[in-house]
């Protein structure tokens, strides 16, 4: 083995792959070889570090220097200056969005300082395709501990005592679920890992499987042992090719080593794992639809009970947990229930991974203890909204969740507090909206998503979401009538109460929560025919302020339909009949003389 002085960790998560990390890896390899540093510095491709906004990310250990937005042309400078001469390249350091300080070290960046990583502990730190690196980070130590000293009941009890709740959205106690399935009498039982992540903006399952697949496998093995299953499936959507590839590599490696298969490590425990690629229907994230899909039937939910723990895959008792839930399990077994339960709130223990997106500076993946406030996540970790933009709302929980306004920002986040506030944890997508986002339009967007993803089996969801969407589209088009709000509310409650599965039952949540906190925006759309954020095209016109316009003629030249006219150095006029509201004049006006009305 060669003794490397330093390790150059290059993020190989999907976010950084799309911003070009593969070229950077090749460039580094070449440059190191050229400078004869290839026996001094080792290049490691890791999983996602979370700060995808700043990708591609490159981290040099042991100094823990953090470079962001690295481009191929920067590679030579990093090698020459830092690796060769020991002078870090400060221009590529992370800049704190508020203080504008350049921060060289990984651990000192505000985005990471407030996080507490349990599920994501190895993501971005290890090479996900290298089994030894996982092993070095206590990998499979929980499996070893469990097989040598714990009975299945003890495993279930520890998970129950830890207070782990399902991270996929519902928040059902994981230990209780396992206990119910363990009690079911059957010679065959199954474990399923639900990686059919479909919420717009959420990508924690993908990152976990891409960054630390063995951790998820170990969690599944522990669950299988606890309930007495000998076969498991990972249901991963086919849109996640990298996650599938890395998970498959991990499964093959575990099989080679005998960590999957018959009589694992000489014990009586046998377990095999298969990947089932999902075709990308959102409804297949619902457990009964997911089971139907694995069985080869059309992905449609069925009514419960019987619950899958009694009658699941192929009619046998089955435990379905989310990726993140499984990722927490090895740590609970290894360090005990008390240590896990010490983090979080009274009824929601541990941490939760959130995918931060929308109108804020640091977007990416964060893992924070339960009970943290939304304000801390958005401002301390996310860096707040962009300059000059005012925070309006945060959408949490994807199409099943709701919008919370500014006065709910100090709410400690856990499963129950969110439900009370009219939102829900969901899988953990957080979309920040600023004053340029129209609340009605956001509700319409999420509803159009659930409508097109509705499987069509039950009428309330199939017809109800369609009708709701029609009303919202009418409101956005300026044709809303005063009765619409009451009609929407009534219909929403009916769908909530009568739909067959979680998709339909939660589909009206975005509307109900926005009606609760932002009713005035709906009213502005209906009564005043105005869109306060200037998003709904039918509800505003572009105008030129003739006191500001200096007649530079830029807008007249670029208008694609010739709606702007005027003499040089004279204020211009805009013909609102011809105008198609493309907004290009507003973007290009050097004097900001064009505005929406």
């Amino acid at each position, binding site marked *: 083995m060669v*003794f490397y002085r330093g390790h150059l960790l290059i993020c190989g998560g999907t976010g950084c792959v799309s911003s070009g990390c593969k070229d950077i890896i090749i460039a580094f390899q070449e440059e190191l070889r050229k400078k004869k540093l290839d*026996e001094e510095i080792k290049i490691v491709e890791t999983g996602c570090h979370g700060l995808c906004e700043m990708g591609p990310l490159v981290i040099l250990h042991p100094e823990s220097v953090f470079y962001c937005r690295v481009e191929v042309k920067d590679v030579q400078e990093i090698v020459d200056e830092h690796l*060769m*001469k020991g002078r870090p390249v400060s221009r590529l350091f992370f800049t704190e969005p508020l203080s504008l300080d350049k921060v060289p070290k990984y651990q000192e960046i505000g985005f990471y300082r407030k996080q507490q990583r349990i599920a994501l502990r190895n993501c971005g730190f290890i090479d996900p395709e290298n089994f030894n690196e996982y092993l*070095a980070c206590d990998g*499979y130590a929980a499996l070893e501990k469990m097989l040598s000293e714990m009975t299945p009941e003890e495993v279930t009890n520890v998970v129950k005592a830890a207070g782990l709740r399902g991270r996929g959205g519902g928040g059902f106690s994981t230990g209780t679920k396992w206990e119910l399935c363990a009690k079911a009498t059957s010679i065959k039982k199954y474990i399923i890992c639900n990686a059919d992540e479909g919420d717009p903006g959420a990508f924690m399952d993908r990152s976990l499987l891409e960054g630390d697949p063995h951790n998820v496998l170990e969690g599944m093995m522990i669950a299988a042992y606890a309930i007495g299953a000998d076969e498991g499936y990972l249901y991963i959507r086919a849109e996640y090719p990298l996650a599938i590839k890395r998970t498959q590599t991990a499964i093959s490696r575990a099989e080679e080593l005998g960590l999957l298969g018959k009589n694992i490590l000489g014990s009586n425990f046998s377990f095999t794992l298969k990947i089932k690629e999902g075709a990308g229907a959102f409804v297949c994230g619902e457990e009964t639809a997911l089971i139907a899909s694995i069985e080869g039937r059309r992905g449609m939910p069925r009514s419960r009970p019987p619950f899958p723990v009694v009658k699941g895959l192929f009619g046998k008792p089955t435990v379905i947990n989310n990726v993140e839930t499984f990722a927490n399990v090895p740590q609970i077994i290894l360090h005990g229930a008390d240590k896990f339960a010490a983090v979080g709130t009274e009824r929601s223990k541990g941490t939760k991974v959130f995918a931060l997106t929308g109108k804020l500076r640091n977007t990416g993946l964060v893992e924070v203890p339960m009970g943290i406030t939304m304000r801390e996540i958005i401002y301390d970790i996310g860096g707040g909204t962009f300059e000059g933009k005012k925070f309006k709302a945060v959408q949490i929980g994807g199409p099943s969740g709701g919008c919370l306004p500014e006065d709910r920002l100090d709410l400690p986040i856990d499963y129950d507090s969110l439900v009370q506030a009219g939102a829900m944890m969901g899988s953990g997508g957080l979309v920040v909206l600023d004053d340029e986002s129209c609340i009605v339009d956001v509700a319409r967007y999420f509803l159009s998503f659930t409508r097109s993803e509705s499987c069509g089996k039950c009428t309330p969801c199939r017809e109800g979401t369609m009708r709701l969407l029609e009303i919202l589209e009418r409101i956005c088009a300026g044709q809303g009538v005063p009765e619409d709000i009451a009609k929407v509310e009534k219909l929403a409650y009916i769908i909530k109460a009568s739909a067959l599965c979680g998709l339909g039952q939660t589909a009206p949540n975005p509307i109900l929560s926005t009606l609760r906190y932002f009713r005035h925006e709906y009213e502005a759309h209906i009564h005043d025919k105005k869109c306060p954020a200037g998003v709904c095209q039918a509800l505003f016109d572009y105008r030129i302020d003739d006191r500001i316009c200096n007649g530079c003629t830029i807008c007249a030249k670029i208008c694609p339909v010739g709606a702007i006219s005027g003499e040089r150095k004279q204020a211009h006029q805009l013909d609102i009949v011809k105008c198609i509201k493309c907004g290009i004049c507003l973007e290009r006006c050097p004097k900001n003389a064009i505005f929406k009305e």
Partner: protein
Amino acid sequence: MNKLLTMEELRELRKKAPDEMTARQTWDTQVIVSVGTCGIAAGAREVVTELLKELQRRNIKNVSVTKTGCIGMCEREVLLDVVRPNEDRVTYGRVVPRDVSRIVGEHLVNGRVVEGLVVGRISS
């Protein structure tokens, strides 16, 4: 690799695994080589290469080897600092590759400063 048939074998494998990760954390004991243009001209790269070889020969893993730029005393290059927890930071000057094994053996392993090469100390 063969199948792991017992827990003992998994344990053995895990014991060896951290070797690959050793450079991924900052250790308390550090060797810092100054590699500005002056240092490189005086042979700092050869010193670093020799240092890594020496650490590998002795199988020492809990040491971080880092580089720094010119620290101003170009006359005495190659400069090499040894930092050990709760001890003075010692700067060696005019280090050549054949001194490395002495510095590693005496100072890093046995804790005895190689007095003949010292050009400065910073108290801890």
